């Protein structure tokens, strides 16, 4: 293996600095005593206390966690089905359509997805009376739709890499397709399902634009509350919230990485 040149190495170090300095600055200034976010005035944890005393943020966080949990679970089921159908099934009517529809949400601008789903919900309510108003259900449907695309991509690449002969052997030994799926395929792709679920969970937790379009009164998610606060300027309790999220995510990713490593052959 040829070593990379000093230019490439320097560019890489600078690139990583670019990625991590903003995150470090968020964490450092969350412990700042001063209200002014960027002037250091001594160590303090007061903003964490303030954060946990804010019912608006806590309520929104609870709503967001509920939405993320349900959407991620639904997205894993639907996304896995889509991936399975696209990779393992022979040609069928609508395969190209499904392939195109599963990749489009990955790059489709959020404003378009949000607007189009809202208009669909309004039209459906006018025609069938469902969904009555907008809120948790409509956000969950919207999040499931764009998250399932991410799950499908992750599961698809796992299915492509997987040794198909194992499934064929099980079929030859007389197992029914459903049994083959649950006993052979599912355990082999389970790491992809876990990462797909985690990815969907964070994407849903993070989404501002689609949730703003599809939400109704009384269903403000955490990003919506953060956005309205941040628009008025920086506030240190948002730094505290960011730090908590970053630490939890880092722990989660590290755990997932160590948990999944021994399974990879």
């Amino acid at each position, binding site marked *: *293996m040829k070593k*990379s040149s000093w230019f*490439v190495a320097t560019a890489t170090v600078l*690139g990583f600095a670019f990625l991590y300095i*903003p995150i470090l600055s968020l964490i450092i200034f969350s412990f700042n005593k001063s209200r002014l976010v960027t002037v250091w005035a001594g160590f303090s944890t007061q903003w964490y206390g303030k954060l946990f005393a804010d019912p608006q943020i806590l309520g929104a966080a609870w709503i967001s966690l509920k939405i993320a949990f349900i959407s991620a679970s639904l997205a894993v089921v639907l996304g896995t089905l889509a991936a399975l159908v696209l990779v393992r099934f022979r040609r069928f009517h609508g395969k190209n359509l499904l392939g195109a529809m599963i*990749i489009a949400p990955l790059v489709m601008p959020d404003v378009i997805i949000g607007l189009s789903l809202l*208009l669909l919900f*309004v039209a459906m309510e006018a025609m069938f009376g469902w969904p009555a108003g907008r809120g948790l259900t409509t956000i969950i449907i919207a999040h499931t739709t764009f998250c399932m695309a991410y799950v499908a991509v992750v599961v698809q690449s796992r299915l492509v890499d997987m040794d198909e002969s194992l499934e064929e052997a099980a079929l030859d030994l007389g197992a029914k397709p459903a049994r083959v799926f649950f006993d052979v395929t599912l355990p082999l792709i389970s790491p992809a399902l876990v990462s797909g679920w985690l990815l969907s969970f964070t994407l849903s937790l993070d989404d501002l*634009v689609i949730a703003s379009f599809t939400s109704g009164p009384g269903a403000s998610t955490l990003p919506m509350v953060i956005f309205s606060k941040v628009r008025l300027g920086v506030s240190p309790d948002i730094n505290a919230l960011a730090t908590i*999220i970053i630490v939890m995510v880092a722990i989660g990713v590290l755990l997932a990485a160590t948990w999944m490593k021994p399974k990879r052959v």
Partner: protein
Amino acid sequence: MSFSANKATFGTLIKRTLVKRIRFRGRSLVIGIPLWWLIVFFLIPFVVVAKISFSEAIIARPPYSSLLEWKEGGFLLLKLHFSNYLYLLEDSLYISAYWSSIKVAFFSTLIALLVAYPMAYYIARSTERRRNILLMLIILPFWTSFLLRVYAWIGILKTHGIINNILMSLGITSEPLVMMQTNFAVYVGIVYTYLPFMILPLYTNLVKLDNSLLEASADLGANPLTTFFKITLPLSVPGIIAGSMLVFIPVVGEFVIPALLGGPDTLMIGKVLWDEFFSNRDWPVASAVAIVMLVLLVIPVMLLRNAQNASRAAST
């Protein structure tokens, strides 16, 4: 005897077709659930948007007119209003917003490519242990809140922010630089948040690069720069296309970054659509803005699909 044998074969025949039926049912169910979910919640919404873009804004709930009208004598009248599209052409705001969104997306894609390429190259050339750690470091910020990472830049770039504090305490500038609410801040925010989307496809491509090609080129007397431009770069074109599309397409419709980091003269179509919908409450015009944006993005989406199919074909 023969009758019972016949009966048995007949029985198995029925059983077989039945099993086939069930299997067939199961198959179409497995296909149907994701397919219909996406048709209802992804495809049909675009039809609804297209429909509403041809209607008229009225003060009602919902705030748009119906396209179909029953006239006396059972005639069905179809009324299409092209006025929303004409309005987009007449008001220079929209055309310049589309143009500046494409410009911002193009240049930030280019900058992201220049920043990402050496990083992806370095990671692809590292030992496996280091490669896994570096990849995780690339992915990690992507898992933390996008909104909060954009927010972090406000603290860094604003007038009394971190950069200005450092510059002024070092005596490099006496007046704070104005960086927030400028296009510069928007570029920084976009490149920062979309960098992982550029690095990962490039890495996937570069890691497959056959080392013996580079060695052969070096043996034949090419210097590293020639080898890069004649071998590495041409072979990584599918990765460059995939990464560029993953950055370019969503950036065209980006809302959060221009809303938080941009200023009054930052004009981006995602923000225009948002304001049209939430501030002006003009649903038909917002729909027309979305449809035009969609049409503009169809070409890069097709390019992306072709690039992915090509790289899939090349890898198998």
